[in-house]
């Protein structure tokens, strides 16, 4: 693949369609700047600021736009809240739709057939693959991202974190907890 891809880039460059330096910058942004830390900051803010949480759940894009330290977010981000009664989980069965600005590029498993096929039919089985076991009566709500809406799960705040700063809380927010295939870490950093 390396040779075929290099050949195509050479052609696009020679034709004057793209500047390879611009491609470098796109790659650099996703390797170093745009990742799950963005989403984790949003979650930590929602855990500590009830008014922000209310706005986040009402209009995700608008609420996140007010956070200067998080990268801008495009249209139609929908934040969905986990509670003791409802656990949310996000999938894109048709391709790989994912909130890039909040979580970075999706992991391979998110884009691969096992997750895309089973998340809507056997979400508890999928959660078990991640080592997550929920009470039998918890409602599992699966959001299939079939349009240009993007979903961010607001995981439950772990017990024992009263008075923690946003920065410290953000360290507990894993990528998977914002997809809904994981839970936030416990105060000592262990995976529940």
């Amino acid at each position: 693949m390396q040779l075929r891809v290099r050949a195509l880039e050479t052609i696009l460059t020679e034709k004057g369609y793209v500047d390879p330096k611009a491609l470098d910058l796109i790659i650099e942004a996703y390797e170093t700047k745009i990742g799950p830390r963005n989403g984790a900051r949003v979650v930590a803010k929602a855990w500590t600021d009830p008014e922000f949480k209310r706005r986040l759940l009402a209009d995700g894009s608008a609420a996140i736009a007010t956070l200067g330290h998080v990268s801008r977010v495009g249209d139609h981000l929908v934040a969905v809240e986990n509670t003791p009664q409802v656990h949310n989980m996000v999938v894109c069965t048709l391709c790989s739709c994912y909130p890039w600005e909040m979580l970075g590029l999706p992991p391979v498993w998110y884009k691969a057939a096992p997750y895309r096929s089973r998340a809507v039919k056997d979400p508890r089985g999928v959660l078990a693959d991640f080592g997550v076991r929920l009470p039998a009566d918890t409602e599992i709500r699966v959001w299939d991202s079939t349009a240009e809406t993007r979903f961010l799960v607001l995981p439950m705040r772990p017990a024992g974190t009263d008075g923690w700063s946003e920065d410290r809380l953000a360290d507990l927010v894993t990528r998977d907890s914002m997809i809904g295939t994981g839970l936030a870490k416990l105060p000592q950093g262990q995976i529940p």
Partner: protein
Amino acid sequence: MNGVHDMGGMDGFGKVEPEPDEPVFHAGWEGRVMAMNRAMGATGAWNIDMSRFSREVLPPSVYLASSYYRKWFLGLEQMLIERGLIDADEVASGHALRSGKPLERGKFTVADVQRILTRGSFSRPAQGPARFKPGDRVRAKNIHPATHTRLPRYVRGHVGVVDRVHGCHVFPDSAATGQGDDPQWLYTVRFEGRELWGPDADPTVKISIDAFEPYLDPA
């Protein structure tokens, strides 16, 4: 199209296998493919729905056997050739043999990078009132277009409830075939697991899709 990309509910693909400390890219070329796709999309050579369709039409055996970024590469190469932006003999030689064609928004340069790091808006002004409101029962139409659609097979013919109304958005079925935005109302429609997967399904599971109004009938 009823392609293998429409995977919701299929069996046999095995366990989900998360990779600990997964890198953003597994090889240098993956990043180049991602960036070339984003860059060429930003020149106006095609829209996101055309780009998705280019991967959906890969032969099923190729689709299933290819890594994610290999699919992106194959779709990209095909779209470039179909639009006459590159030619097969250039791909074979690894160099441009003719000069480039004009692009709608011109060459993708360093100055364009920041713009594409934020998602564009797919919202459009409403062309008319919404047909449905939250709480309405709707049936996903039993339709099987051979072209691009975002109505997954596993909900077709099934009854759900409108959960949210998202305003009017670009209609992918139209945009993918070059027929313009044709904005349509967009709804989150929630289905009971048992409605989709039968009486033996887990009663605690609910699944939603985001459905454009033309996908839905009142129920």
